[in-house]
């Protein structure tokens, strides 16, 4: 039983998908035939073989051909999609370009090549394949003819059963060949069409980069919005509660004068810890997204930042307008991280932060007079900084010779 199934599979394998392939080839042939008719129309209409008429017909035909190009491309895309389930990406993305633009672009030229050279050639192939099918079917069913067709219509020699047997075997062999040819031609057509009717590799990559850039920007914005949301939640929730707790403990401390020493100590301790928790939570919230940045912009947020650094830092922000929240937030964190580094590693006695617009970018420079030797990738937080900057297509340069001074220059793109 299993042997039979296997044999069946082996015999039928060449014919797998044959139906679709034949339909596909036939549709292609129809399209090309339609084109031929349209191109021949001028000749038929002018109904003349004089040189002038032929020339006119040629020019008219060419014009029709060019005008039909977008339509043809769509027809071919539909053919591949419906007959084979192959989705050739549109070379223009979602948009529909103007005709002149289409013709001038390499995309347009590639399409012309398909419609007026490869397409007809392939269709010629398709015609041959279909003819092969017809012949093969006719031959393979020789016995049917012998049985069905009245004797006087039959070709004389087909009466001989030896010939009939040969023909049947040959027909079946050619059927197999036709199936194989259909497959091969379909694959060839798909290959050619993908190259000529779809976007080229460079165009695909360009599109991909576009999509990625967009989605990354979206992601960065989403992360930023999320930080703001968390900040708000913490501010409205836990922070208020903690302050209230600390206030109550403070009241307890102030009013319960006659408590035993132990109890007083406990309240004292709780009060102090509540206050520390507030401090910690505030600095956490600031690290997430400082509310002042959103409310008042970079200038205010950066001077607030500088004020909390133990090293004296001068802040100069020269901006006339607010920037996008994402850019502001990156600039803020760059300065925040850089100042943390100054405090941790630089042994600096003073620092300076300047922020200004330079054309279409935002220039952030952080300087300190410390020991220098800062390098991205030495775990000083600089590599994280670089990543953050790169996420918005910015650049980060660190100039930090041993012995100092250290200058970190960050350039962030911002739309004017």
């Amino acid at each position, binding site marked *: 039983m299993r042997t039979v199934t296997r044999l069946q599979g082996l015999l039928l394998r060449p014919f797998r998908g044959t139906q679709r392939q034949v339909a596909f080839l036939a549709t292609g042939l129809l399209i090309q035939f339609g084109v031929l008719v349209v191109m021949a129309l001028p000749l038929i209409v002018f109904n003349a073989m004089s040189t002038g008429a032929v020339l006119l017909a040629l020019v008219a035909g060419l014009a029709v051909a060019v005008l039909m190009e977008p339509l043809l491309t769509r027809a071919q895309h539909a053919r591949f999609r419906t007959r084979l389930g192959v989705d050739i990406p549109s070379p223009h993305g979602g948009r529909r370009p103007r005709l002149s633009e289409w013709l001038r672009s390499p995309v347009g030229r590639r399409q012309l090549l398909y419609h007026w050279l490869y397409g007809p050639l392939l269709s010629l192939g398709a015609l041959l394949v279909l003819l092969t099918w017809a012949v093969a079917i006719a031959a393979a069913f020789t016995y049917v003819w012998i049985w069905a067709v009245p004797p006087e219509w039959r070709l004389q020699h087909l009466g001989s059963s030896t010939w009939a047997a040969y023909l049947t075997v040959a027909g079946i062999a050619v059927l197999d060949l036709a199936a194989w040819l259909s497959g091969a031609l379909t694959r060839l057509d798909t290959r050619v069409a993908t190259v000529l009717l779809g976007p080229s590799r460079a165009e695909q990559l360009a599109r991909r980069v576009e999509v990625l850039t967009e989605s990354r920007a979206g992601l960065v914005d989403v992360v930023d919005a999320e930080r703001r949301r968390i900040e708000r939640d913490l501010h409205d929730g836990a922070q208020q509660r903690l302050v209230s707790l600390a*206030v109550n403990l403070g009241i307890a*401390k102030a009013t319960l004068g006659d408590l035993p020493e132990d109890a007083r100590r406990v309240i004292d301790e709780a009060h102090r810890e509540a206050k520390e928790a*507030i401090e910690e939570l505030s600095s956490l919230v600031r690290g997430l997204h400082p509310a002042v940045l959103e409310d*008042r912009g970079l200038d*205010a947020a950066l001077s607030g930042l500088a004020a*909390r650094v133990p090293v004296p830092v001068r802040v100069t922000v020269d901006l006339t307008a607010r920037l996008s929240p994402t850019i502001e937030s990156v600039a803020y964190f760059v300065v925040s991280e850089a100042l943390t580094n100054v405090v941790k590693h630089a042994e600096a006695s003073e620092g300076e932060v300047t922020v200004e617009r330079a054309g279409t970018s935002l220039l952030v420079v952080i300087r300190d007079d410390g020991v220098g030797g800062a390098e991205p990738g030495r775990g000083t937080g600089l590599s994280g900084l670089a990543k953050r900057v790169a996420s918005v297509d910015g650049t980060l340069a660190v100039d930090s010779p041993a012995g100092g001074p250290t200058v970190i220059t960050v350039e962030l793109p911002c739309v004017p």
Partner: protein
Amino acid sequence: MRAVIAEDSVLLRIGVVRVLEMAGFEVVAEVGDAEALLAAVEEHRPDIAVVDVRMPPGFTDEGVRAALVVKRRWPRTAVLLLSQYVEERYATDLLSANTSGIGYLLKQRVADVEEFAATVRRVAEGGTALDPQVVSQLLVRRHSGPLDRLTPREREVLELMAGGRSNAGIAEQLVVSESAVAKHINSIFAKLDLPKADADHRRVLAVLHFLGVA
């Protein structure tokens, strides 16, 4: 003394009310947004309004704007702003409008109950009180001017003065004698070319210089 409180967080409002009542204030109104604050001040004419910076509907700086209105319309009502974070521009906004009866503190200072009550009282009596963090933030942004002539120690003294401390308070903070503080202050007055007037007025002028408002 009579106080109005504007704070949208109910928890914190209860806390502030408790602290003030404990310190002998009479809390005549508790409100949750800037508009209600103006109405309450209009109605009660309190000695002081304790106001949260971030309030509905926008949750940005409604409190500051309301405080400016209060100081303009009812100059005898003192305003103490409470904020989750310090923003020196709020302070300069306030101080350039009016210099007496103004305070600006971080919210968590309320927890230091006795100190907070003392600050409220000082502001209600027409004094100025700035959170130490506001003051240090202001220092960062001063670029040049007569302040550069001050020694670091004098700067520290001025900073504490701006925070509203008395000579005794400054002396305690810096662990020096009161006379040393007085000497520093005289030197500050001289370096800032302040006209000879009564000490309190010079003090205010010095602080204003310091804040870049004068």
